């Protein structure tokens, strides 16, 4: 298969030693197997995330996101932009949609961008890594690379909010998207398709500012994974991953639970199933160790 190339928008949490550095490392390993070349958009900036709204109206937020498009269009023309973070993808896509719908917003955005010597032309698409996997490869092609099926491991597929709403993945429903379960099955794992907290909000940024209210959400998300017999949770979102993993200790203190549920990324599953080491899958980046994945990573490949 010919090499596929994309303009990569890693986002702020994915950088070296950021809170989602394990996501970045495993995505890079996964892409190596799939012969995908990711070229970082030179000088990309923060998308504004979900919670920074009080600092500005919508125009400044569109300008911030348009800057990344403008850089990609100038320096990596013809390549789709790929984001791994749900919020990065959502904000960029929202900007692309709004600027496409309003000539005035587009003109205002370009007037502001001129201050940075840039222009938004709306030529590049922005896509989530999951879209690249499903649409540019497809489950069958992804499955062909599996050398270590994740046999006997039960995964609660936690899709969360922003990879799912308001845009979502084409062909999937907002209430019960199936792609994560299908990815798990493609890697040879057991998908707990009845897991009912798959699109529940983890509290997002409010896990920081409203910890008690968010911990109630996180408790539901983890508890249901236990109820369905999950060995671990898997998610496509870095904020979901962080919130659901790192606050389990607080949930335990508050609710008297004994949660110790690993929360992994789809890219970590895929790296292991593709024969990568625990280090390549960044399993050393889990605060709650994903021992079942570590065991498979340590075994020799079947074929």
């Amino acid at each position, binding site marked *: 298969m010919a090499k596929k190339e994309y303009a990569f928008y890693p986002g*702020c949490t994915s950088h070296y030693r950021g809170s989602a550095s394990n996501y970045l490392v495993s995505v890079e390993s996964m892409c190596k197997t799939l012969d995908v070349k990711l070229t970082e958009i030179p000088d990309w900036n923060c998308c504004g995330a979900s919670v920074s709204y009080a600092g500005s109206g*919508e125009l400044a937020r569109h300008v911030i996101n348009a*800057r990344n498009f403008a850089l990609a269009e100038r320096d990596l023309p013809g390549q789709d932009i790929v984001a791994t973070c749900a919020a990065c993808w959502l904000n960029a896509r929202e900007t692309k949609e709004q600027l496409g719908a309003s000539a005035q917003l587009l003109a205002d955005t370009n007037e502001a961008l001129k201050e940075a010597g840039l222009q938004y032309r709306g030529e590049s698409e922005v896509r989530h890594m999951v879209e690249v996997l499903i649409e540019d490869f497809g489950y069958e092609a992804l499955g062909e690379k599996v050398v270590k099926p994740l046999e006997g491991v039960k995964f609660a597929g936690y899709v969360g909010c922003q990879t799912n709403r308001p845009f*979502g993945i084409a062909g999937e429903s*907002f209430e019960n998207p199936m792609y994560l379960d299908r990815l798990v099955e493609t890697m040879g794992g057991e998908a707990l398709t009845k897991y009912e907290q798959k699109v529940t909000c983890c509290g997002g*940024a409010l896990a920081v500012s409203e910890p008690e209210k968010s911990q109630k959400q996180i408790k539901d998300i983890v508890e249901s994974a236990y109820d369905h017999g999950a060995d671990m949770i898997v998610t496509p979102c870095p904020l979901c991953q962080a919130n659901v993993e790192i606050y389990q200790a607080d949930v335990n203190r508050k609710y008297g639970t004994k949660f110790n549920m690993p929360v992994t990324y789809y890219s970590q599953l895929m790296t292991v199933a593709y024969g990568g080491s625990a280090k390549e899958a960044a399993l050393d980046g889990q605060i709650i160790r994903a021992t079942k994945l570590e065991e498979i990573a340590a075994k020799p490949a079947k074929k």
Partner: protein
Amino acid sequence: MPGDAGMGDMADLNERALAKYRNDFLREVEERVDEGHWVKMCMQCGVCAGSCPFGPHWEHSPPKIFLMIRAGKREAVLTSDSMWMCTSCYNCVVRCPRKLPITTIMHGLATYAQRLGLAPKVQPTRDFSIIFWENFTRTGRANEMRLMLRLWFKEGFAAGVKKALSMRDLGLAMLRTKRMSPLEILGGHGVKDVKGFQAMIRKAKEIEDRRRGLSG
């Protein structure tokens, strides 16, 4: 508290808004709040209120806020704590039969209230929102270390030390798993063209203020 500089300017902006719009708060929202022109489309079905993960914590649910806007309850809306409860989960947006961009409208109302100096003074998400904005616009990228420290120490040094100590297990775990870099405190990652980045944001604010009649 963050973002409270220029209280005089805020009060002045509020006075001028009151003089300009008098009792027509709906028009004020339509002209000045992000996606405010959608407000009148709400048909009060209540699906959004029932879909909100933080629904039980909202004093005024989105449909209530939309109705209050139409009823001209300006102060009650802008001083409400409710919009700051939005987690940006977009559940309301995808379920709304009229397709209102409710998340964006809630953010917009919160931002407008903050701009006029009417937002609740003790509101942790308001603080976080402003601190986050200041954090990433400083270098062009969000700096998680500085963000956390600023949040912990916003109530003063003693409270910050206490908070930092209470978080030490988590901090050590993040260090151990290489998901935190103390070196980021020293400045951290950012865009090369910080000057251009900040200039375009200034320009965007200037243009938007002009369009919305908010310029001085």
